Each structure stands twice: as structure tokens, then as C-alpha cells.
């Protein structure tokens, strides 16, 4: 029997339709907003989120409350809340599922987040592939506004907020905070190294707090049910809340599952994702999207939470688990991943723009049986050097490459020795 866990973010998920405003409200929706507007100072709110250990779900695990707090008290207005719904990390689709399940949860989260930064302008940055989600949000924002949850003086308070949906033209780098801000301003979406930090000078030079869809959706629940309840959702000691895990690849039931933070990888695969197909054996997974390291069999039982992963030198990332079996060539998989990153590199800095195509070339030669011994140290060296790129894109991009060699050097060597891909 599969253990059942409390459903928080996906509590109103239905197989065939989107939760309406009424349904959301029936489940307690917008109570948190009313509560916050009446009973919380914006600083109280920041404190609650910090105490609840709400960590960013976009991949970097930055404490959400801390981010609000970095907006200086005397910072200028207008201030902005940007919701990052770009979700271009391969393997990740939780934000899409969440928006399609219960859009008002995100909207409420954004309004409350706005209160915490004294921001009155909200923008949802969404990838063009999610056109249907964009339409849903536009429609529901209007409904929320008609119901008085958005607009001037929300619920009679002095907090006001407008939310607009901004469609991206489509590029992975647009998910990176500073690149996203540039994109929003109609500039080329190259990242921009701080300082200044976006919370100091972001959109149009104004303080801007940027958070992931899933992060924002957590906020109303923390307010409604309290810090302890939230922390207790996690099965790990240090963790808090639930996590949306996207499972794909060699499993019987790919999908997005809301599970306690810290649930074991083995359980996710075997229980929730229906196990692996007959004849398939676990070889590795990418535990948190394409820019995390391969997690080999020795970590099959690991607790899927930020800290336990970090302790063994891995990252939880977005919690997008892509499962590879013993029949899948990881050199070819890494080639595919590198192809993705090389194609999506924004082209701003040298290591990423030129180094990734170089790595791709080496992997391609390996896969096609033209590999040479010296490729291995070159791949290692370049993976290391790509950490000195301009932004976090390239370090992420080399995670599969570096971990391929760390954990599966034998498989790489076999390609060289046999002068062909042993899986073909």
C-alpha cells in the first residue's frame, strides 16, 4: 500500500479541470491574505517565512523570507514581485501542474509576498510553451480582482496590488533571475552579476523580489496553518513543507507528486512513480533537473531534501527526477544534455559559449567511437573551469558531465576501448 501524505499545494488537483475561485476559497483560500492584511506587519510576515524555513523551490534554495528582508526599509517605490514561471529546467513541470491545478494559490501567494516587500506590482514571467497556463492565469487574475483580492486597497487594507502575465519569447537562460529582469525590460536576457542585487535595484532600477511559483504557493499555507505544522510536513529534521517531485524517464508512472520534503528517492520511484518497467534496473537519476549531478545507485535511498543532498555533494535542484536504467547509455544522455545547454547558452561569457560546444564535440566523438584517452582529463578540466563562468548556467551545465566521469568513468572508457557505444 502506498503511504498517503497530506496534499497541500495540490489539494484541489483534479484530473480534468482547474480549481475555481470558489473551490479554492472552500479549501481555505484567501483566508491567509485576509489574516495577513489585518494582523501582520510586513516584518511579521518576513519573520514567519524565515521561521518556517521556506526555501526557494526554483533550484537555489534561498530562504524566501530572507529575500523579502533584503529589500531595505527605505528602498524606493514602486517595488516589484516577479513570479518565475519560466520552468525551463529539463525534467521540470511542477509549476505547470500547480497552475493548472489551483491558480489562485499562486495568486494569493504573490499578493501576500507583495505585502512582505511593500510591492504593489506583480509580474508572472511565463514560458511560451505554457500558453494555456498563461491564459488560465490571466483569466483567474481578473476573477481575483473582481472578487477584491487584487487592485486598490485589497480587502479594505492599505495594501494594493496588480498582477500581469508576461510571456517569454522562450529561452532557458530567462529563468535566471537577472536575465529574467533584463527580459522583462525588453533587453537581451543576459544575466547580470550583482551588485546591485535585484532586491536593491531590479526591474527599472527598483527593488524587485523574484520567486518561483512553487515557493509562492507555499506562503498562504504557512500563514494559515502555522510554522510548526509546516515544518512537521517534512520527514527530515531540518526540512520543512512538502515538495513537488516531477518524475520522468524509466518509470511506469511518470508524473508530478506532492510528497513530504525528505521522502526517500527509492520510495518516490518505487511507490509513487509506479516503479521501473520490467527489465529495467536503476542506474542513476538526475535528481533535480538537468543541471544537477547524476545520482548513482549508492544514493538510491537518499532523503530528498536540500540538506541531505548537499551533505553528499549533490543538489536537490527543482526536484525533477529523471530516471536512467542500466540499458541507457549515459555518455549519450550527457551528450543530449550538453547539446541542450550549448544550444541555450546566452553567449555572454567565453567558457559557456565556447566551452560547451567543445565538451559536446568531445562527447559526440566518444559516443561515436572516436574517443581518445585524453578526452577524459579534458572533460574534467573543462567541467571544473566552467565554474568560473559568468553565471550559474554553466556550472549547472557541467554537472552531468563531471558526474558522468566521477561515477561512470568505466562506461566512458568502454566507449573508447570498444571504439563504439556499447549500448548500441
Amino acid at each position: 500500500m502506498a503511504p498517503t501524505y497530506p496534499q497541500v499545494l495540490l489539494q484541489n488537483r483534479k484530473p480534468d479541470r482547474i480549481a475555481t475561485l470558489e473551490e479554492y476559497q472552500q479549501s481555505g483560500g484567501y483566508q491567509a491574505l485576509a489574516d495577513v492584511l489585518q494582523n501582520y506587519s510586513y516584518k511579521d510576515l518576513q519573520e514567519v517565512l524565515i521561521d518556517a524555513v521556506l526555501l526557494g523551490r526554483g533550484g537555489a534554495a534561498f530562504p524566501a523570507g530572507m529575500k523579502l528582508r533584503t529589500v531595505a526599509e527605505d528602498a524606493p517605490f514602486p517595488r516589484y514581485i516577479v513570479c518565475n514561471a519560466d520552468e525551463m529546467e529539463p525534467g521540470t513541470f511542477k509549476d505547470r501542474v500547480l497552475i493548472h491545478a489551483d491558480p489562485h494559490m499562486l495568486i494569493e501567494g504573490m499578493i501576500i509576498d507583495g505585502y512582505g516587500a511593500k510591492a504593489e506590482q506583480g509580474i508572472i514571467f511565463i514560458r511560451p510553451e505554457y500558453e494555456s497556463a498563461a491564459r488560465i492565469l490571466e483569466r483567474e487574475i481578473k476573477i481575483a480582482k473582481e472578487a477584491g483580492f487584487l487592485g486598490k486597497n485589497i480587502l479594505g487594507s492599505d495594501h494594493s496590488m496588480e498582477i500581469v502575465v508576461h510571456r517569454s519569447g522562450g529561452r532557458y537562460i530567462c529563468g535566471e533571475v537577472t536575465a529574467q529582469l533584463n527580459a522583462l525590460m525588453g533587453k537581451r536576457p543576459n544575466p547580470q552579476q550583482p551588485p546591485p542585487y535585484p532586491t536593491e535595484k531590479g526591474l527599472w532600477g527598483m527593488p524587485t523580489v523574484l520567486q518561483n511559483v512553487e515557493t509562492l504557493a507555499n506562503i498562504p499555507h504557512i500563514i494559515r496553518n502555522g510554522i510548526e505544522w509546516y515544518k512537521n510536513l517534512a520527514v527530515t529534521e531540518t526540512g520543512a513543507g512538502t515538495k513537488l517531485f516531477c518524475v520522468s524517464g524509466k518509470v511506469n508512472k511518470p508524473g508530478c507528486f506532492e510528497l513530504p520534503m525528505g521522502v526517500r528517492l527509492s520510495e518516490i520511484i518505487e511507490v509513487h512513480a509506479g516503479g521501473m518497467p520490467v527489465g529495467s534496473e536503476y542506474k542513476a537519476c538526475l535528481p533535480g533537473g538537468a543541471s544537477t549531478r547524476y545520482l548513482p545507485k549508492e544514493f538510491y535511498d537518499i532523503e530528498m531534501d536540500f540538506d541531505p543532498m548537499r551533505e553528499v555533494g549533490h543538489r536537490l535542484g527543482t526536484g525533477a527526477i529523471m530516471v536512467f536504467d542500466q540499458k541507457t547509455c549515459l555518455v549519450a544522455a550527457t551528450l543530449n544534455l550538453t547539446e541542450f545547454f550549448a544550444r541555450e547558452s546566452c553567449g555572454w561569457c567565453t567558457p559557456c559559449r565556447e566551452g560547451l560546444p567543445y565538451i559536446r564535440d568531445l562527447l559526440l566523438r566518444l559516443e561515436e567511437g572516436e574517443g581518445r584517452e585524453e578526452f577524459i582529463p579534458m572533460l574534467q578540466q573543462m567541467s571544473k573551469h566552467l565554474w568560473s563562468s559568468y553565471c550559474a548556467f554553466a556550472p549547472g551545465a557541467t554537472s552531468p558531465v563531471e558526474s558522468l566521469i566521477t561515477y561512470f568513468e568505466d562506461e566512458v572508457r568502454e566507449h573508447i576501448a570498444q571504439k563504439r557505444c556499447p549500448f548500441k
Partner: protein
Amino acid sequence: MDHNEDVIHPMLPAKLRTSLAEHIARVDHPRELVVDVMFAIQDQFGFLSDEAVEEVAQLLNMSPLEVEELATFYTFIYREPVGKYVIHVCDSVVCWMDGYESIQDHLRSKLGIEMGETTSDGLFTLLPVCCIGYCDRSPAILINKEVYGPLTPEKLDEILENLRAQG
């Protein structure tokens, strides 16, 4: 500086032009709308022609180059003519594991075109695309931003037939 003071393009339908101009007039920072404006014009004509780039530039008081800087950055802005149905085949890692290559091969042979090409009847264009966020439905494709998956060659045939029938 005013960039394209004297250039007037007759191509944009007056109604669209006015509605875009009104939208632009309403916002504090017109430039934030550049992708929206590009999409709006692209939706009208299928792709963003040179004239359209100049049109966007004029509407937003940018230089055509500044528009081109963005138009050529993004995946979903087409600077060349495309078919009525643009098929984006996801070729990222999950779809790769689940066999996007056979989907792609099937499409190529069925439509008689290579990736990046458009069928001679102007109906279909084939383009590769990075992970579209439907890994739970892989192998997946997008047709005019609508998702299809998980796919098999049979399902594909059905989809193509339906679209052909719609013309």
C-alpha cells in the same frame, strides 16, 4: 532619440496597429511589451518579416536592430516564413530516453521535409525545441504551442490527418 521618424509601413492591419499602439500608450515602459508586440504581429502573419521588425521598432520607438537583437534571441520568434502548423519536436533528455528520434524520423518521412523545413503546401514546419515541460507525457511535441504526447507513430498520423483536414 527618435529612431524611425519617417518610415511608414502599410502592412499592419489598422485595427491591430491601433490596439497595439493603445496598449503601448498605457504602460510606463513600452519596451517591456516588445515580445508581446512581436508575438501579436507574428500571430497575424505566421512569422516576423523584415517589415514586421521595422514595424515593431516604430511602434516602440526602438531601432530595427534593437528589435532584431531580441527577435533572434528567442526560440518562438520566427524570422523566416513558417507553415500554418509549426511542429516543435522536443529533443531533450527525457524525450530522448523515450524515443523522440523515432517521432522525428516519422515526421520527416511523413511530411517529406527535414528539420527546419516547411512542406511545399505551406502547412507544416518542423523545428527542434528544448524541453517543453511535458516530460510526464514524453515523447512530446508542440504544434502551434499546443502540446501532444505521449506520442506513437500512429497517434502522430492521426494528429497530422486532423490538421490536414482542417487545412
